[in-house]
């Protein structure tokens, strides 16, 4: 055996990085290069004549092209999970999907920023650098496999967002929003870091799979029998909760949502679109990564058909005198003592903890967001609460996925696929809603719902498209917003157990609750008379075209969600294995 020398380590590290990791990191590298070019281009002579919009657009499109797998999307079917950068990040079809998602959003977003004029010639480069930097952080968040990268990703995404929230200079509300965001973000980041240190301290590693393995070794049910063991578990729970604080902040989940309406109201509508779509998507995938990373080790994964099924049936037939009539009954009898079935294995307590925590938080977040949106008169505040409610809905899919992961991998994948479908369609809905808000702000200098009165008479296309988007946000067929809701409900029903059924009912009821406040905006635009204070509103050709382009998918995917759903199914085909 060769002695391990420093030279060896360095050589293998370089080899691993250059050959094993960097090829998978090309989109991020492209983003980095764009940022550098944006920052330095003005140093050179003539550089100030190159518009920063152009650089940012080319850079993000390049990154997007690089994010598509060379072998085609179909290769996700067989793409194995790979850890890159010595286990810091993970590259699998989920990473690939979410990166394509984030970069597509950024391309659209850069176009939007240019059209609304928020990134003007003078400030443009700062703005685009911040946007691309935050996107880079989000890509890392979504692919992190290590507590260190998790924290770095969250911070890399957050810090530029703080600045973006206050990018409109000279507006008090804007600076206030940024300050509130910073303070809140810094506080929760500190708590999260503390939680991470507790977890890594006990588990001896910050690498998620290793942490899961040590969690499995700890044998939690056994630990709970001794006083000392209970202390350890308590610290673990505390660490988990603190980690949850940081993630809940990014998700704006109740009770860490207070920043969201204020920041959304203070920041410009474009930045709101960025925060509500990209930031939420990355945070949701990160939550899934944490849940799946800590909740399961590879050995205990069941085969796709469910290895522990016969046991369940044995319980069913011995536990009741009448023959169990069918599958659902059998599972229900088997799990009647178990409020939240999460499957067996040494890590089932971790999953149970995660599932209960996330699902309760999701219900509260969703319901609170919908109820609080009722009283809003400012459209951005209303959309902020709507974002909170939708984040709650999406968290339900994650709870269902983790609850199912221990029992039936195929069903768990379907749940994640529902989440991805939700995120993807949410892009179109929220981007076009905020785009409308931004363009209208430019036209009429108001973001009050009352000022939207009678818009259908002056700009019918905008009003109709916005109505379609709002109805899609409610989740009514045949518009796109319905399908992800349906898929999430299906996943919750499949997950079963009283808690999940409660979440299922709460989710369904929330659809009805959400109706009134979305419809109020639609009503203002289509039914109400025009306010006297508002002048003529007419969007230019390009803004109208942009709104049309991003909201037409809401209609198209509403009628034919099949292709997109196939895509999300592909993206999860290797997950949990």
């Amino acid at each position, binding site marked *: 055996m060769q002695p391990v020398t420093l030279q060896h380590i360095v050589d293998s590290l370089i080899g691993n990085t250059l050959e094993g990791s960097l090829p998978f990191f090309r989109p991020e590298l492209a983003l980095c290069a764009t940022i550098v070019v944006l920052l330095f281009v003005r140093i050179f002579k003539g550089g100030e004549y190159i518009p920063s919009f152009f650089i940012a657009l080319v850079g993000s499109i390049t990154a997007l092209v690089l994010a598509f797998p060379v072998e085609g999307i179909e290769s996700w079917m067989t793409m194995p999970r790979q850890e890159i950068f010595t286990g810091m990040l993970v590259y699998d079809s989920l990473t690939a999907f979410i990166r394509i998602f984030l970069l597509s959003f950024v391309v659209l977003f850069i176009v939007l920023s240019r059209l609304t004029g928020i990134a003007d010639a003078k400030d443009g480069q700062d703005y685009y650098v911040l946007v691309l930097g935050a996107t880079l952080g989000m890509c890392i968040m979504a692919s992190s496999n290590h507590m260190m990268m998790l924290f770095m990703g969250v911070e890399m995404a957050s810090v530029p967002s703080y600045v973006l929230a206050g990018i409109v200079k000279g507006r008090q509300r804007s600076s206030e929003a940024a300050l509130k965001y910073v303070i809140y973000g810094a506080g929760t980041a500190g708590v999260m870091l503390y939680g991470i240190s507790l977890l890594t301290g006990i588990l001896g590693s910050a690498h998620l799979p290793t942490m899961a393995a040590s969690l499995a070794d700890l044998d939690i049910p056994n630990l709970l029998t001794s006083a000392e063991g209970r202390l350890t578990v308590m610290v673990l729970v505390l660490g988990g909760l603190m980690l949850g604080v940081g993630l809940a902040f990014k998700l704006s989940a109740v009770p860490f949502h207070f920043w969201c309406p204020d920041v959304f109201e203070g920041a410009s509508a474009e930045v709101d679109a960025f925060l509500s779509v990209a930031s939420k998507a990355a945070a949701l995938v990160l939550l899934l990564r944490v849940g799946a990373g800590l909740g399961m080790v590879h050995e205990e994964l069941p085969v796709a058909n469910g290895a522990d*099924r016969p046991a369940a049936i044995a319980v069913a037939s011995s536990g009741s005198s009448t023959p169990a*009539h069918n599958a*659902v*009954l059998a599972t229900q009898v088997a799990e009647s003592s178990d409020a939240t079935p999460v499957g067996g294995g040494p890590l089932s307590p971790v999953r149970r903890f995660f599932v209960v925590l996330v699902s309760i938080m999701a219900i509260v977040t969703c319901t609170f967001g919908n109820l609080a949106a009722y009283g809003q008169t400012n459209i951005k505040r209303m959309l902020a609460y709507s974002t909170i409610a939708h984040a709650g809905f999406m968290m339900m899919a994650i709870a269902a996925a983790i609850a199912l992961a221990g029992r039936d991998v195929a069903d768990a994948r379907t749940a994640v696929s529902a989440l991805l479908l939700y995120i993807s369609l949410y892009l179109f809905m929220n981007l076009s809603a905020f785009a409308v808000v931004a363009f209208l702000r430019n036209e009429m200098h108001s973001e009050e719902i009352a000022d939207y009165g009678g818009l259908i008479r002056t700009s019918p296309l905008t009003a109709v498209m916005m109505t379609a988007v709002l109805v899609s946000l409610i989740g009514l067929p045949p518009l796109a917003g319905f399908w992800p809701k*349906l898929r999430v409900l299906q996943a919750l029903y499949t997950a079963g157990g009283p808690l999940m059924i409660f979440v299922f009912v709460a989710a369904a009821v929330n659809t009805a609750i959400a109706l009134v406040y979305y419809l109020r905006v639609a009503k203002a635009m289509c*039914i109400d008379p025009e306010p006297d204070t508002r002048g003529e509103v007419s969007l230019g050709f390009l803004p109208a075209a942009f709104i049309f382009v991003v909201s037409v998918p809401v209609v198209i995917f509403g009628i*034919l*969600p099949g292709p997109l759903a196939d895509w999300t199914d592909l993206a999860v085909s290797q997950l949990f294995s």
Partner: protein
Amino acid sequence: MTLSDPKVYLSLLVFLPALAALVLALLPRLADESYKLISLAVTIFVFILTLGFFRSGAPIDFEAGVAEMQNLFNIDWIPSFGIQYFMALDGISFPLVVLTAFLSMLAMAASWPINKHVKGYCILFLLLETGMLGVFMALDFFLFYVFWEVMLLPMYFLIGVWGGPRREYAAIKFFLYTLVGSVLMLIAILMLYFNSDLTRLDAQQLADAGIVSTAKGGDVEQAFSAWKSSKAPLAQKYTEITQEADLTQRKQLHTFNILALQQMGQHTDLFDGVALWGKSIQWWAFLLLFIGFVIKVPSVPLHTWLPDAHVEAPTPISMILAGILLKMGGYGILRICYPICPDAGYDMAYFVCFVGVLSMVYGAFAALAQKDFKRMVAYSSVSHMGYVVLGLGVWSAVADTGYNPDYWKMGANGAMFQMIAHGISSAGMFFMVGVIYDRVHHRDLEKFGGLFAKMPVYSGLAVGIFFAGLGLPGLCGFIGEVLVVLSVWKYSYALAVISAAVVILTAGYILWAIQRVYLGAEYKGPHGEALTPITMRELSIAVPLLVLAIVFGVYPTSLLNYMQPSVDLQIDRLAAWTEEHDNRVTATKPLGAEDGQVADAWHR
């Protein structure tokens, strides 16, 4: 891709209005009149398409006297979600489809007085028509749900923009009630979906569900094995799942196919598992679906949206609401609730009947108390739709009657007949109210009187239509009411007596209204000078309605020929199910034990 292909023909029928709406949206600005003319032309064309089904022997037709589904077709819509584009017509849906096309045409003609945002009105109206036609034709539960929801938004705006003074309140109330109902329906759909299993059906049942297509009189088994080896994704999934020999390991093949769900509800124990608080899955599914549908019917106590929506909606929309939208509730109960969840329906039969009778009585008393003409007509709808719920719920095929389904058949046929009859008479009544409202701009029953003198033709037609609503023998309302009331007699004397007595109340409020509005010496209310005779356009809407009311009253067989076979078949099946069910309960034998179906713990 010829027109004689049911795929093309039915799709054209359903989506033509939506396509026309899209074209209207893209058209440059036209005169208001042209929008109305184009929309009217489209609705007339759609009506002609439905009339095309009557050409018996033509490449595409609807045969009277056939109980099974006709013109059935089945295409994958969203394969990854297991949702199909699956439509067909039978005796239950066909009359309603024709009624929809007919009333849409008349309502569009009645829309001429609308002068505000005509383009938007026409677009929404046409979208609404697509939704309505789709609901009656869809046989995939999801497709049904999607069409059901498609109607909501156009209806909201049609009431909210073109309605009366309290239109916004009425519109949101309508929307909220219906949405709550459809959320409950969605929960039930998912419950049924996740407990369904196509692999439990045999070849004949799969053929009946339209999954295995057989030629008329062809060999089912042969078609079944041909289907299994076909390339269809569903067939391949079926083969894959049934290859698993160990039944405890076998997955379930879920489906949204309404016909297949009916087969499962009646022939397997898939929906008998305990769901919550000791009640079975189908009990809960039935309850949720029933609430969802009864909101639409509407039955007391979930009817409160209806008077508001009706009163505020413009006349043509009231016609659509009363004439078609209410029928969807009854159609849903008949098509979905009972056949899919027979056990629960059996369990709750008395409850359903009670809801029906309660609506009849309450609606009639409320109608008596109204001062607003339109509100009175609206409450009369609540009362009349109570007959529908009652007729559907009369589960008289029980052990005491020797499982004789005849009375139940009478009730269900009566309910179906009542739906069509009420569609004609209530649309007519709302139109008649609209005609005078357009002239005098008020609807206060106390301020009318003496219209006969000023508008004799109109008043004659109106009295005729109101008598049809009253249920005068010789007019359409009579047949349905009489069939329902007669059938209840065998089920419960108390309910029969009460429901028969409601006829007196009905006569009371309608005759009183006629007296206050049309009789009397002289019109003393406001805008007396505006009471001009009925116009040709109005005449061309009112006359067809009255003619149909008379035709169906005098010769009800013309309608029953089409719907009775299908209704009877369904009731026969349910009666057979009841007998089997009772035998099973007395013998405590699990369902399916005799015919070799495995009743132990099947597992996905």
